[in-house]
């Protein structure tokens, strides 16, 4: 399963990130194989969001490297040195990476369907009919077939987040990133979003999910990663984290959220 021929979807090596003088990511390395679901847990401020944002180059990195499907993200070699890539190339690389935000960030002036068809039409150049029929299938998959002509403002948080998932999936990305997708939701509706994500995980979508929903991690994750103060301090199966976490900080963190 880990044969190098198969290739990694994500290879992050010794990623460093500063905000001003704050050293936020202090050498984060993470490999993700095809069809794998990795959950990232960790205390507030440990750099989880920052790490995800670096993966699709919403943040620049100061050291290390990030490759998606073998292609370096955001940077290229020029005369033996790494330079930031062009906006055009970065945009193209981002089409391979779906991002689901904590606060959905749906386009409020577009209907659910238009939110989903926007990028396939504008970026991939898919025909309108094809984009619409794809989008209808995706909305059905997240259980929102009947809401396709509704504007985000008229949808519940859980429904908005499911549209956001459909919107990201519409680009058929190789890797899906979720940044605490349920933490801005009312407890009653987190389930409907987690169910959709669990289904994606079981269908073999390659994904990284920052979440504190340990139930979800247990059901869907192949691997759990614990971040603390800008580094990964522990990594293992969900069972490992439930039964025998080794690091003191992991134990302390888990005892707080479980």
């Amino acid at each position, binding site marked *: 399963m880990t044969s190098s021929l198969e290739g990694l979807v994500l290879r992050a090596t010794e990623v460093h990130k500063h905000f001003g003088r704050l050293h936020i990511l202090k050498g984060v390395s993470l490999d993700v194989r095809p069809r794998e679901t990795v959950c990232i847990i960790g205390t507030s401020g440990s750099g989880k969001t920052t790490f995800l944002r670096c993966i699709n180059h*919403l943040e620049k990195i100061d050291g290390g490297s990030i490759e998606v499907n073998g292609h370096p993200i955001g940077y290229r070699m020029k005369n033996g040195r790494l330079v930031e890539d062009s906006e055009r190339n970065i945009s193209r690389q981002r089409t391979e990476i779906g*991002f689901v935000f904590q606060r959905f960030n749906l386009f409020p002036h577009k209907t659910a369907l238009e939110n989903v068809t926007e990028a396939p039409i504008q970026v991939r150049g898919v025909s309108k009919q094809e984009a619409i029929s794809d989008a209808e299938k995706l909305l059905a998959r997240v259980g929102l077939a009947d809401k396709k002509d509704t504007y985000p403002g008229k949808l519940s948080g859980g429904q908005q987040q499911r549209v956001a998932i459909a919107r990201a999936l519409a680009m058929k990305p190789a890797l899906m990133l979720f940044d605490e997708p349920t933490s801005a939701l009312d407890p009653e509706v987190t389930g409907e979003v987690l169910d959709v994500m669990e289904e994606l995980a079981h269908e073999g979508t390659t994904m990284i999910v920052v979440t504190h929903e340990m139930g979800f991690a247990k059901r869907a994750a192949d691997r759990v990663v614990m971040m603390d103060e800008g580094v990964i301090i522990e990594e293992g199966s969900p069972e490992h984290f439930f039964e025998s976490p080794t690091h003191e900080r992991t134990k302390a963190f888990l005892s707080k959220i479980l």
Partner: protein
Amino acid sequence: MFVHALWATVYISIVAQVLGIILGLIAALMRMSNFRPLRFLSGAYVLVFRGTPVLVQIMFIWLIIPGRTVGFGAFTLKQEVFAGILALGVNEGAYMREIIRAGIDSIDKGQMEAGKSLGMRYGAIMRRIVLPQAARVIVPPLGNEFNNMMKTSSLVYIIGVYELFSDAEQVFSSSGNVAPFIAVAFWYLVLTSIWSIVQASIERRLAVSEHGDELSLRERAVAVWTEGGGVSRLGDWPFGAGGRWRGRS
């Protein structure tokens, strides 16, 4: 002759306003650029054109544009008309930059990030995601700008452009009668009142859900007169979106 004067005021104002919007948008985008010289240029533009009287700008541009006519393919403009429109438009652009920038700033940056994460490029995100949403914020003060523009455009009489005010001025200087100025004030009032009705209907269309109160055309016309001709809701508020105090005309 008089109809020509009225029409001149209308088209000079419209063309200058459109020019102002385009220049304001370009300057606003330059202001947000990562490239420092562009930001500097945008800042210098605003500094100069907001910091000097529009009358001086009109004179200056009129003086530096050569020839008697300026041609654009099929049609030509008299030199003074072209200079007047250009001066008013360039001046307006400096004000529009601030309005457009405020509109863009009012949009959550998550919108830009969502667009980026879908692989959309900067221009497409601006055009399809950010600006359509910013329009709601931009349109009310823009309406006030245009109201101002119709009145300010009278200043081009100084470089010999034939329009509403200069028409009155000509009649006055040949007859010594003040009546033409009363007539001209009336016609400006007609123009700005018509515009207020149009503006109210555009704003209502942009924000149906926000206001919900559907006024008929007649009710809107009444509102224009009771609320004060030519000033939108936001414009009434001294520090509101459109309420920048501005004694240009």
